């Protein structure tokens, strides 16, 4: 079951059991973005407070598997209080982590290319790439956040 333990690292289960930044923000002023994973039924709603180019607050509701829940919880911790530029960088780094093909992982499970340090505890999600079907679970929150930023821009 070593693969499985790679997927379900303790920190992931922790975020799953005690999700951070759970809840809603009054909208407006907060921006509200919905995300679906049509294939497995995961749903997420992300609330964003953006002021002067800074993501001052973020809250999440929705339901999904441990991977999607943990990923969104970890994401919220990682981006809250960051400048939009930093948020975008985080999104890019995380997506890179998720597109590193499983075969380019080293024996010990470390991605060769993605810059893990910049990801902090999010790096724990790297085991997901060995389970291609689950990648969409891990990226749902991130795609929804990204969508929110785009919407913001076009308003």
């Amino acid at each position, binding site marked *: *079951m070593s*693969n*499985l333990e790679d*997927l*379900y690292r303790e920190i992931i*289960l922790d975020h*799953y059991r005690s999700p951070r930044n759970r809840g809603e923000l009054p909208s407006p002023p907060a921006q509200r973005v919905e995300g679906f994973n049509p*294939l*497995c*039924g*995961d*749903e997420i709603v992300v609330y964003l407070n953006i002021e002067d180019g800074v993501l001052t607050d973020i809250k999440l509701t929705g*339901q*999904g*598997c*441990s*991977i*999607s*829940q943990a990923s969104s919880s970890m994401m919220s911790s990682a981006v809250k209080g960051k400048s939009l530029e930093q948020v975008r960088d985080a999104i890019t780094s995380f997506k890179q982590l998720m597109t590193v093909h499983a075969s380019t992982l080293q024996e010990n499970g470390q991605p060769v290319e993605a810059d893990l340090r910049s990801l902090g505890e999010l790096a724990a999600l790297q085991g997901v790439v060995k*389970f291609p079907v*689950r990648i969409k*679970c891990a990226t749902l929150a991130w795609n929804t956040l990204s969508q929110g930023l785009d919407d913001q821009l076009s308003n």
Partner: protein
Amino acid sequence: MTSFDPHFVRRDIPLLERVINDHAITYLDSGATSLPPRCVIEAMTRYYELRHANVHRSVFQTASEATAAYEGARDLTARFINAPGGAEEVVFTKNTTESFNLLAKSWGWANLHDGDVVLLSEMEHHANIVPWFQLREERGIEVRFIPVTDEYRLDLSHLDELLNNVKLVSVTAMSNVLGTINPVRELAVAAHGVGALIAIDGAQSIAHGPTDVVDLDIDFLAFSAHKMLGPTGIGVFWTRAELLNEMPPFLGGGGMIADVRLDGYTPANGPTRFEAGTPPIAEAVGLGAAVRYLQGLGMANIDAHEENLTRDALQRLEDQFAGRVRVIGPNNVVNRGAVVSLDVEGVHAHDVAQVLDQFGVCVRPGHHCAKPLMRRFGLSATVRVSYGPYSLAQDTDVLLEALEHAVKMFG
């Protein structure tokens, strides 16, 4: 009756020899797609090796053979469901979903107008919902839903009111989430009583027991080969010849026309009107082989076998997991098929399925393309276990053992 033995069936299924994560495969996803026996696979291989040619269009030997094989499959399919008008009533589509689109976009488009009602149920698969929503957008029809009771049955207590202005009742014979088998004949009587027609989603029911469209007194039937030990890429749409011949064309192209001029076209008659372009020929051959194979097993035998598996599974889930795992579906085998949806306390379906996979157990987590039903029960996903003629009680053994692991891991 007595000759049916699932162990013999298993020997015919190459995929059951597969090893997954060091475990023999435990395939419990027949509700999503079934495993074809060797004879089905070989029928298609032989077709490609010996007689592949385009149908209906040439006089040479292999083309006649291909045409005979294709039309022969239509005939076998017609007999399988006891189509009163025979092969002339059987249209080959690409899947159940296309069959419902054909129904909505051809028959529905021609016969339903502003204010007309199509009556579905809350337990329908998206295949029998979305085409009606599309028609609603274009035609202003009303789409109404028969509610589902807390016992996971259709709530027919207000059927009379629900039938008001209904022109078509379209329901599933068997829910792909709950396992519930609906009272099709009763619904047919009620529909016809108000002058409505009735369409049946046979995707789940077709492989699990006998289907007789005359006996059921229905007007339309849709199902897919891949859920009845057949190949992907082919589905069936059946309706009575009188209705079929009145339906306007749907997809346009070669094969479905009698004539094409620069200023217009004349559609062909019969099933070919709805089979535009090169049809799924090898797939029809595979479907024909699957029909023969199922008939060899005996649909009543399969029904009885799956009922035993379901009874056993329901009992053992109750014994071993009461309070930790909830069955989303009827808790007995009366009017119930071999689909058992589980809600595992505190563990998301996706995670359960992932752990099960480590034991070689194949189940399906998700909304099973029945989101309205999931919402009805406040669920976002279930773990669905589904059996086939090749399933054994031992499959349930492995399932339950793996389920213990999943529950512990996330507990």
